[in-house]
């Protein structure tokens, strides 16, 4: 786990809280950045590594939960830990349902916070890795010709070569050639791997003609 690959961001309107948290995170070996508002954080360039966001609920301007929604739309991989001055149950429940890692009430125990940060980074990293797999699969699928892509969809559907040939009004031999080329381009050797990579790439199975 290289330090450059992960980052902890603190968004809180109170300066002493920011200073205290940055010091605590640094003492635990994390790289920390602090922001005084949600808007300031959104202005930062998107970090590509695993990211934990320590987010205050009540702030001037954009509030914590609103930032959570904005980030969801952006589709980035940061995981959020809410920190709040007064923990009210409805806000906490909503935040947790929307995927927050934890909801800490100020003043919280330093170790508790570190544990939450650790969990958030781990989840962020998992999400990041999944996204990498998906991107790789998609780039390979993109190399297929339209005909090969057609054949792939029928294979994923579980059709035999003969059936695929009937569907595509072509010879079984031709299908066999296309299929070999698909396996080669996607870098797999078994049908099972083929199905898995198609799923990563989001390939939908073809629909059998009625």
């Amino acid at each position, binding site marked *: 786990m290289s330090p450059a690959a992960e980052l902890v961001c603190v968004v809180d309107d*109170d300066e*002493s*809280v920011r*200073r*205290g*948290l940055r*010091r*605590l995170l*640094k*003492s*635990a070996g994390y790289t920390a950045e602090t922001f005084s508002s949600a808007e300031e954080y959104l202005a930062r360039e998107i970090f590509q590594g695993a990211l934990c966001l320590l987010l205050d609920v*009540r702030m001037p301007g954009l509030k914590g939960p609103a930032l959570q929604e904005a980030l969801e739309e952006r589709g980035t991989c940061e995981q959020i830990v809410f*920190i709040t*001055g*007064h923990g009210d149950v409805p806000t906490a429940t909503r935040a947790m349902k929307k995927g927050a890692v934890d909801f800490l009430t*100020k*003043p*919280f*125990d*330093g*170790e508790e*916070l*570190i544990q939450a940060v650790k969990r958030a980074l781990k989840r962020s990293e998992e999400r990041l890795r999944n996204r990498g797999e998906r991107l790789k699969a998609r780039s390979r699928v993109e190399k297929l010709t339209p005909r090969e892509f057609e054949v792939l969809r029928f294979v994923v559907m579980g059709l035999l070569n003969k059936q695929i040939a009937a569907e595509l009004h072509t010879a079984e031999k031709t299908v066999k050639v296309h299929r070999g080329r698909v396996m080669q381009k996607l870098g797999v050797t078994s049908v099972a791997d083929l199905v898995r990579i198609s799923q990563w790439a989001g390939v939908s199975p073809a629909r059998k003609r009625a």
Partner: protein
Amino acid sequence: MKTLATPLGLAGPGSRSTTERSDAQFFDRRVAGVALSVALAYYLGAKIGFALTFQPHPVSVLWPPNSILLAALLLTPVRVWWVILLAAFPAHLAVQLQSNVPPMMILCWFISNACEALIGAGCVRYLIDRPVRFDRLRNVGIFCFFAAFLAPLLSSFLDSAFVAINRFGQDSYWQVWRIRFTSNILASLTLVPFIVTWSGDGIAWLGKIRRARILEAGLLLIGLLSINTIVFYKLAPTADSALLYLPLPFLIWAAVRFGSRGASAAICALTLLAIWSAGHGYGPFSTRSAEENALSIQMFLIVMSVPLLLLAGVIEERSKGETTLREREERISLAAESANLAFWSINFERKESWMSDKGRAIFNFGPDEHLSRELFLSRVHPEDRNAVGEAIERARASSQTFEFEYRLLRPDGATRWLISRGRYVSNDRGGIRELIGVAIDITAQVEADLQLRLQREEMARMSRVSSMGELTASLAHELNQPLTAIASNAAAGRRLLAQGTPDLEMFEELLADVSADARRAGDIIHGIHHFVRKSEGRRCPVNLNEIVQEVLRLLHSDLLGRATPVETQLAPNLPSVDANPVHLQQVLLNLVMNSLEAMQSTPIGKRRIVISTTCEDSSSVLVTVRDYGSGLPKEDLDKVFNHFYSTKPNGMGMGLTIVRSIVEAHGGKLNAENSDEGARFFFRLPVKPKSETPEVI
């Protein structure tokens, strides 16, 4: 007596509407029927009049046609009178022609007869509201004077004049006048009441009479007829004239038991029998000349009938009054029952008192207990007793209507709220005759009112609490920021130490941050004092006694609702302090509310708050609020003023903090201590120096 009023035809709403209906329909077939019967009756009446003439001299003792006409006019609406008169004329004509009277004389007599009936009926109808009844002394009096005396008197002059002008008969003017006058009086007195009372209400009432009444009427009739026959027919003409009064008991019986109907019928029977007997030469009125006999029998009968009619009127009036009174009393008692009213009266002259049953129940008086002011005051709540006593005394002195609201303390300990209204009634000599009044039990309203007020206050308190909650939430948020920073820094410090490579410079920075955050937390707490000081507003000379009174007024319903009496010991001539009156009000309000809350578990009888003001060595004023509640926990004596400290389950622990802040902002000091029972809160405020009053507003 009970059944008397109904069959004798009281002016009830039913009979009146019948009259109105007949008014509307009078010109149809009914008017024809009435006209026909009038003509018939007139004819028959004249025949009877001739029959009752004393022979040989044709002197009429009783001349019924005029009375029949009069009765018909009394019973019919004025609009149809002309029909009645027109109908009577042919009858008059027929009768008189048989007696060989010249046509001119016939016409003249009809005119005078009609005049008599019109004068009598006109006066009576003008003075008595329809329908004409003989059930009141006034009505009978009006009838006797106008119809039975004045009308014959006036028309007799006319009659005599006609006779003189036509040179009819041999009698002198005054002879004719006298004969006619007396015979018409007699006819009016005997026949008109009979016709009017027996035909006024139809015959429907006959069906409602009880059998006992019919039996009694039969007995009366037999007795009356027998005694009349004995006196006027069987007795020798020379018998003792005192025996003439033998029918009197029966006549009085008729009047007393059967009212105007009975009396008029009895008089009729007596009259007809007496005249008939005398006319045929029997009885005491047959001894002298026809003229003398006629006069004496007329006088006898007139003297008998007038008092009887009046007696019947009085009797009916009284029984009617009794019925009305009973009905009214029932109505009032129904109203009293349903409205929780207590009616009462004390008559000082007769030394009598009365109170409705409901009232006795409300006041818890025995059914025969004599009412008096002392008895009444003994039921009044001790706290209201003086005020009520004074109100009564004031009303008595000015003889005016009084009204006051007070509480009753019933023997079972329950408190009832009442409003009493009363009036002293003076007698003719200007003294006080009677005290009458009504008391209304308004406990339900008062309690509902109190409930409403308590609810409103509870709502106000809730909103106050929620705004306090808002304040604490933001306060908590404010405090949590530095605390979070301190906690984070501490955790970071521990980690750094554990790593064994303490960067001293960084550590120093860290500790500086921690102490800065701690200071900041302290400042937030102090902010409450600033908040109070900021909203201080304008100061002016304030009399603390007035503040105490004002606060007690504000808390009136609270104190009532919690059954807590407040005792004040206010120093007279208290020097004023320089203060914001609204803030001092807040202080006292808070202290009294705290006392009330502290006594929630104190038994009701023991609850008490004592507020006192004292002037101390002319430089400061001491205000004390003492309760008889649970007192303060010993170890917490000073803690009660701490922020967020509360002994109440729902307390915020802010009230006394703010109170103390206010007192201190005014240069005073607030303290608390336990007394032998309950707690005592007291504060001193400096007196405003006299020299320092340049601001004259």
